[in-house]
């Protein structure tokens, strides 16, 4: 009970606040730019607008995309940290992190349509169908939708074992997300490569774990059926 209360009144609110920080800063910057465009030369408007810099649409677009990607990688970090530290209840934060990732990815897409493309649907469709890096980014967003919808406790119960299977989609989403980032960079790919490296570590950890588990099973003498995979967890 004590752990539950700590999560409810301390950890979750703190994580919620931390995940909201980028959105709040971007919202304040947007207010500044709107004030500036409507003719306000007030120092406050300029200070707020400077949060977004000279190319506010690009800043909004890239910040949301990168925050979504950061959060996806953080959700993938939860399992390794749990297993390596033994702090298993960390999993209680994972849903919130995943939903925030979905929130920022959606915001990224909305900003792209409304501000970057100026609601020019023809060019949006052309982009999604003809530009591979946008196609994979869009696919990643589409795959996030079922994960967000099935994130409730009720859905978890209803789907049972299939829930976990469905949510393995996040591996593919993360790969597509990093790929989308790598592909749109003009020349300096150092940061996208860092993301790819971190993702490789996170996915590699799981592969190694799986391989170890399989080896343990096959190494067991035939006479001991006590450890069948379906009985564990």
């Amino acid at each position, binding site marked *: 009970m004590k752990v539950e209360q700590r999560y409810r009144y301390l950890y979750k609110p703190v994580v919620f606040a931390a995940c909201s920080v980028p959105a709040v800063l971007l919202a304040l910057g*947007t207010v500044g730019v709107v004030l500036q*465009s409507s003719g306000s030369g007030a120092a406050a408007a300029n200070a707020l607008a400077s949060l977004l810099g*000279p*190319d*506010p*649409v690009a800043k909004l677009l890239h910040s949301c995309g990168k925050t979504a990607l950061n959060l996806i990688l953080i959700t993938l970090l939860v399992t390794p940290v749990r297993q390596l530290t033994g702090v298993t209840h960390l999993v209680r934060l994972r849903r919130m992190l995943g939903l925030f990732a979905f929130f920022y990815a959606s915001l990224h897409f909305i900003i792209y349509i409304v501000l970057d*493309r100026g609601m020019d649907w023809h060019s949006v469709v052309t982009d999604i169908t003809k530009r591979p890096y946008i196609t994979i980014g869009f696919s990643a967003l589409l795959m996030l939708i079922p994960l967000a919808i099935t994130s409730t406790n009720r859905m978890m119960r209803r789907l049972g074992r299939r829930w976990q299977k469905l949510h393995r989609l996040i591996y593919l989403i993360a790969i597509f997300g990093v790929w989308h980032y790598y592909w749109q960079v003009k020349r*300096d790919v150092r940061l996208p490569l860092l993301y790819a490296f971190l993702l490789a570590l996170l996915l590699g950890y799981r592969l190694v774990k799986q391989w170890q588990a399989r080896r343990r099973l096959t190494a067991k003498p035939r006479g001991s059926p006590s450890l069948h995979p379906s009985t564990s967890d």
Partner: protein
Amino acid sequence: MKKLPGGILPSEITPREVFLNRRSLLAGALAGGATALLPQAHAAEGSPLPRLPCTRNAKYSVSEQPTSYADISGYNNFYEFGTDKGDPKENAGTLRPKPWSVAITGEAEKTGTFHLEDILHPHPLEERVYRFRCVEAWSMVIPWVGFPLADLIKRFSPTSRAKYVEFTTLYDTTQMPYERTSILPWPYIEGLRMDEAVNPLTLMVVGLYGSVLPNQDGAPLRLIVPWKYGFKGIKSIVKINFTAQQPRNTWAVVAPNEYGFYANVNPHVDHPRWSQASERVIGKGLFARQPTLMFNGYENEVAYLYKGMDLRRYF
């Protein structure tokens, strides 16, 4: 430099266009009142750099409101100082634009290495407000200070073998820290066909907003070709080479499927990864998208250069 009888340098003779232009300015002044008599260059809002004596060339200036000095000098692609748009402003302090020399080489009668002052000396400076379109689909309106490249080329008498002009940026890792990285092959190289180089729109630039060019914008000498994507506008030039071969410009070398030699602004030929049909105007807020114009709006002045060329192939 060869002197004409009477000690006048050939370059000191006012070119016919400028002479005619002065007349049209005077005519405009008579029609519009005395305030239009001497069109003043834009003042640098907050430039700490010295003013340059120059007047506006109205014939070659667009009427749009120029982008702010802060944005023009704070949002740059200058990979020698970093790949983020804010990096050049932060890091370009290590560039020493004075003293500076420029080597003139290749297929010309007069070649050699010259002090920048001697390169610039004969050319009267003018302000031209040009549209600037980056290949990344953003744009600005910029009051440059400079003089036509054609006037400079004339002084060095290129031979008939000179079909192209090749420009090279400074290569000095102590001044340009990112030249230690392998983000691009250094030094940066750009080039123009000779007829493009002598088009009256092609500008050698030494200033911005009526003042000396800030380091991050390519001090002390850069190229501006307003109908081409911004990466053609090579910065901090140390060498001008007249050549028979088409120069291998840096971006076309590193990504030949994405960037060509010509790099003419063209809303109908997309970059493989993004549309070039429209652009975000820097400093225009959240709804800053506007359609991109053929040859960046300079179609009347330059379309003849590419008559009969397949612009999809020669992008």
